[in-house]
């Protein structure tokens, strides 16, 4: 018998989960695969917003604005200049990230509810600007049609189950990257300023820099999610980026577990997946969400899966005798 320690067991889970997920489209019809695609997209959005809300503790209820900037960047450049959407990925990230930098810069010193209200405003401004066909390139309330399909190494992605792999591979990549971010100097800095921004600044952390960085990285990732969304729908319009979208992504983080990507994934399943499962009770959906949120706030503030502590490998790290330093 090979004895496995805790760590190896955790790693053993990854291929199993990946295998199950990868085989899912074989058993499900196009409708359910599409539901999983939505879950995946919301999970990507959730993880990107989680950096801002869960890790840095900045209440952002305007995440759909960054999603929209990414989606419209992809749509406009693809339909006007026929640039393949996949190639536009980095550009969507840059566009959404720069937009976040521009709008977050003057409001970053706001705290809690004040910041929250301003982000709601930003989300609405973007949506209304899109409806008003700003610069004559967003197509007004009708939006933009005929966005090209993404192609990967010459293979054009069309059907839901093909999109399934694109979205979930990108989700896996997202989890991988954000996990690294969270387990670094950068991730810790965000946690410090969430806990106490005066003490963080007093410990030598450039608080406003890190708040901005959280916004920019989160927004850039939402921009890339927007690109995938545009390619998947082939047509986008302002109504896809309503205040409600921001609320949904925010809710799934709070419900699933803020600061924990596994929690966000679970939240995406619960908020986006479950309502599809219980279509018949669609009208009761808001009631159930509301009740669930109230109960969470009372009994489990950290969400269903609260953020775990970071683990440090202390074995082998020796500090020597304290006196010997300096």
């Amino acid at each position, binding site marked *: 018998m090979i004895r496995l320690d805790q760590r190896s067991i955790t790693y053993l889970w990854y291929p199993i989960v990946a295998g199950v997920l990868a085989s899912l489209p074989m058993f499900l019809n196009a409708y359910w695969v599409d539901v999983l695609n939505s879950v995946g997209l919301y999970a990507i959005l959730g993880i990107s917003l989680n950096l801002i809300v869960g890790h840095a503790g900045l209440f952002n209820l305007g995440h759909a604005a960054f999603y929209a900037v990414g989606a419209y960047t992809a749509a406009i450049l693809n339909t006007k200049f026929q640039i393949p959407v996949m190639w536009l990925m980095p550009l969507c990230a840059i566009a959404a990230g720069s937009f976040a930098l521009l709008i977050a810069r003057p409001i970053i010193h706001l705290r809690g509810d004040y910041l929250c209200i301003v982000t709601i405003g930003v989300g609405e401004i973007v949506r209304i600007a899109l409806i008003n066909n700003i610069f004559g390139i967003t197509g007004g309330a009708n939006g933009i049609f005929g966005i090209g399909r993404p192609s990967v190494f010459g293979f054009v992605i069309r059907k839901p189950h093909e999109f399934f792999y694109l979205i979930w591979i990108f989700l896996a990549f997202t989890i991988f990257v954000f996990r690294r971010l969270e387990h670094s*100097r950068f*991730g810790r800095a965000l*946690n410090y300023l969430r806990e106490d921004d005066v*003490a963080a600044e007093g410990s030598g952390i450039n608080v406003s820099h890190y708040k901005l960085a959280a916004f920019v990285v989160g927004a850039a990732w939402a921009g890339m999610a927007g690109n995938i969304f545009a390619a998947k729908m082939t047509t986008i319009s302002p109504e896809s980026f309503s205040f409600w979208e921001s609320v949904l992504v925010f809710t799934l983080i709070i419900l699933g577990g803020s600061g924990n990507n596994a929690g966000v994934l679970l939240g995406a399943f619960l908020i986006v997946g479950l309502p599809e499962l219980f279509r018949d009770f669609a009208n009761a959906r808001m009631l159930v969400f509301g009740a669930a949120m109230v109960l969470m706030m009372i009994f489990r503030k950290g969400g269903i899966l609260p953020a775990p502590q970071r683990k440090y490998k202390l074995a082998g790290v020796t500090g020597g005798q304290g006196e010997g330093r300096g």
Partner: protein
Amino acid sequence: MSLLSVQRLSKHFGGLVAVSNVSFNVEEGSVVGLIGPNGAGKTTIFNLITGIYPANSGTITFDGKSIQGLATHRIVAMGVARTYQTIRLFQNLPVLENILAGYHCRMKTGVLGAMLRTRRQRREEQRALAETIQVLEFVGLHDHGEQLAGNLSYGNQRLLEIGRALASHPRLLVLDEPAGGMNEQETTALIGLIRRLSDRGITTLLIEHDMSLVMRVCEQIIVLEYGCKIAEGTPEEIKKDPKVVEAYLGTEDEL
């Protein structure tokens, strides 16, 4: 040249004069105490030195450079670290990460380095951990590394705050009532810690109400009352100064 030089410093909040025309020097390697009754402006002076808010007039020079108007994190990076009167730890984070917060300004990895997990990033993390353990050993908290800071005893939380400040490699340590809420035994341990800091060449400026601590560790004492400096000198001189006795210490037999 003094490590820290405060010249004609004034600060008022609306009509209230918190600090008025205060000047003093802190020599490298010394332990200096700042004492005075409540509301004398001691913490305000600390906040001015660490850049929490700007002074109305006067200059603050650290190591020959003006630190007036610099952001707090820049001042920390220059070598001034502090603790707070009311403990300000990251309560929901482990002790280790509280110390790592102090070491943050000595690290370089940014967003990209963390995403790519470069060799330099991994080495830096290793070094930071080693540093953290050294600091924990120094302040005597090495058994509590994985605990949440909020679960530590009050005295240990004070030590952790000093540890966090220490991790930023300060040349000047600014302690705001480090013995506040400590029992006699903990205070004695704290005195030992301050002396060991001094042995390592770290200059300390502290506010403290516990006179036995101040008289035992400080080489120089500055006394404030109503925002003004009323006396300055060695513990012996301060004890005898009639103005200080009247304003703060009380008569000889009360002491």
